[in-house]
């Protein structure tokens, strides 16, 4: 077990390095001058050269990578070219906002998915199973940015009961635990929850169905255990797989909320990416992608370790 955890933690190092290489390569394969965002096209040549030196764009790529990596390791992601502020500061505002959305979406999706999947697994082949399975496949097939738009049309345009954009009153960018902020959270969270809901329903259904077919369940019944006690055994056996799927979904929502954030103009990492792309703000783009990918790597690590902790069969493999 400990051996497995150590190996798994060490494996983060090469993956993390690979991620930095990929992020660096991505941004540097983008066409056009990285300075075009700050320098007006009619700027004098000396000024362009000076800025190029100041940003370090005049050195060969491997050296640029090494200096960049060195700075990243001490937590310096550079200065946003278009906004003139530290990338780290921008992220400090945006990441918690995205996290609230992603966590809300995962929790709602997990709750609904566990209930639907559990029911479907227990009553396989019955109408309620078919209903739950249909809801699940709809959930994974719906383009969530469109669902967000439809929810806005229903609840904001037609019924006028919920706000359509933003995170709070007056373009708030900092989360507060009050009713007004909660009202802004409702539609984006529902929108983000459909994909995890569908996937978790499918996972739980398949896992429960598989467990019910195993002999130990019959043995438990034969021993004379109450239905409730048998259920506890089934939950314990289904938990590792389900938690793993849920953990990964949280990661997907953290990194993939850009579409939904665009629909709801939510001030998170998605809008940061959006403006970084369209203002060709390379340090901001690089920093945001790197931080989101690193979150995902660490989340994967956490899920794997958690899974091996609650399921002894895992680490023995």
């Amino acid at each position, binding site marked *: 077990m400990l051996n497995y955890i150590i190996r798994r933690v060490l494996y983060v190092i*090469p*993956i*993390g390095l*690979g*991620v930095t*290489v*990929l*992020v660096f390569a*991505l*941004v540097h*394969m*983008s*066409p*056009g001058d990285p300075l075009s965002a700050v320098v007006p096209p009619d700027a004098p040549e000396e000024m362009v050269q000076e800025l190029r030196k100041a940003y370090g764009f005049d050195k060969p790529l491997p050296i640029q990578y090494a200096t960049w990596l060195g700075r990243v390791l001490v937590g310096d992601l550079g200065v946003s070219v278009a906004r003139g502020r530290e990338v780290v500061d921008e992220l400090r505002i945006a990441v918690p906002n995205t996290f609230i959305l992603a966590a809300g979406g995962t929790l709602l999706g997990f709750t609904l998915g566990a209930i639907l999947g559990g029911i479907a697994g227990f009553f396989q082949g019955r109408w309620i199973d078919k209903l739950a399975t249909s809801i699940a*496949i*709809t959930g*994974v*097939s*719906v*383009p969530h*940015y*469109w*669902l967000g*738009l*439809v929810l*806005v*049309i229903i609840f904001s*345009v*037609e019924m006028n009961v919920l706000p359509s954009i933003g995170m709070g009153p007056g373009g708030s960018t900092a989360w507060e635990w009050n009713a007004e902020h909660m009202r802004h959270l409702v539609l984006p969270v529902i929108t983000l929850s459909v994909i995890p809901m569908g996937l978790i329903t499918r996972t739980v259904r398949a896992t429960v169905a598989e467990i019910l077919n195993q002999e130990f369940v019959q043995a438990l019944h034969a021993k004379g255990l109450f239905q409730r006690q048998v259920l506890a055994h089934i939950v314990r056996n289904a938990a590792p797989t389900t938690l793993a799927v849920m953990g990964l979904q949280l*990661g*997907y929502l*953290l*990194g*993939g909320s*850009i*579409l939904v954030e*665009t*629909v709801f103009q939510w001030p998170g990492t998605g809008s940061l*990416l*959006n403006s*970084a*792309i*369209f203002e060709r703000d390379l340090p901001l*783009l690089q920093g945001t*992608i790197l931080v*989101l*990918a690193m979150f*995902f*790597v660490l989340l*994967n690590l956490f899920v794997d370790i958690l899974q091996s902790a609650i399921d002894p069969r895992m680490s023995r493999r």
Partner: protein
Amino acid sequence: MTTAPALDSKQQAAIDAAQVAVQSRGYWTTVAGRIRDDKVTMVCAFVLLLIVFSAMFSDLIALADPYKANMLKRLAEIGAPGYPLGADEMGRDMLTRLLYGGRLSLFMGISPIVIAFVIGGALGLVAGFLGGRINMAIMRVMDVFYAFPSVLLAVAISGALGAGIGNAIVSLTLVFIPPITRVTESVTTQVRSLDYVEAARASGARSLTIIRVHVLSNVLGPVFIYATSLISVSIILASGLSFLGLGTEPPEPEWGLMLNTLRQSIYVNPWVAALPGAMIFFTSLTFNLLSDGLRSAMDVRL
């Protein structure tokens, strides 16, 4: 040796019939039979054909010009005379643009999967069959790509390369190569250790022959099913990139882009604005159901 009781004529006939049935019903006949019995899959296949054909032959079906704007008809209601599904923010006929939009949306959604199927399949086959260091090298590179949530990776690559149909296809292909490689590698590794592959090797067959005759025929089915299950995500992502302004550029009709440009008009004519997304939804849903149907018909477990 004990003698079995003699079979009566009925039993013999049953056995003969079973043998004939086994001989005549090959694998693909069985699969086709299962699909024919599966109503959901048949309906989905029909709907999908309808969507594909209406996109392919949109210039024959559609009554209007998809690019012709008419400022007087801006955001016409659904059912307005001459505009059965209303008009968009430039007064262009929605029905026509939805039909034409299928061309780019389907092309941008399906082609990344086809390319990734070829590249990822080849990489996975090589990694799984050769094993050892080559396997390590290929799979570790894939692990790095796996460190990115798929939407983030697609947006990051498209954002770096800039808007455009070609760039969107490149970025989606890169998103789907790692999962296809991983599935192919694990299936190939399983098949490689089967007894009859060992036997083929022992009897002197060359690696290429083994791959072509034994491995490929066992690996292709599961990987194909897996790839079809990715088409729905790919269509959603491709339109999503256009929705963000990273895929198709105006005035091309494409569902994601139409959704984006109509977004500003939801307070004027909300339900016209929602139409392109409904097309993405139905297409992705039918692909998903069809892939599920194929999977159970071909009896593939992943």
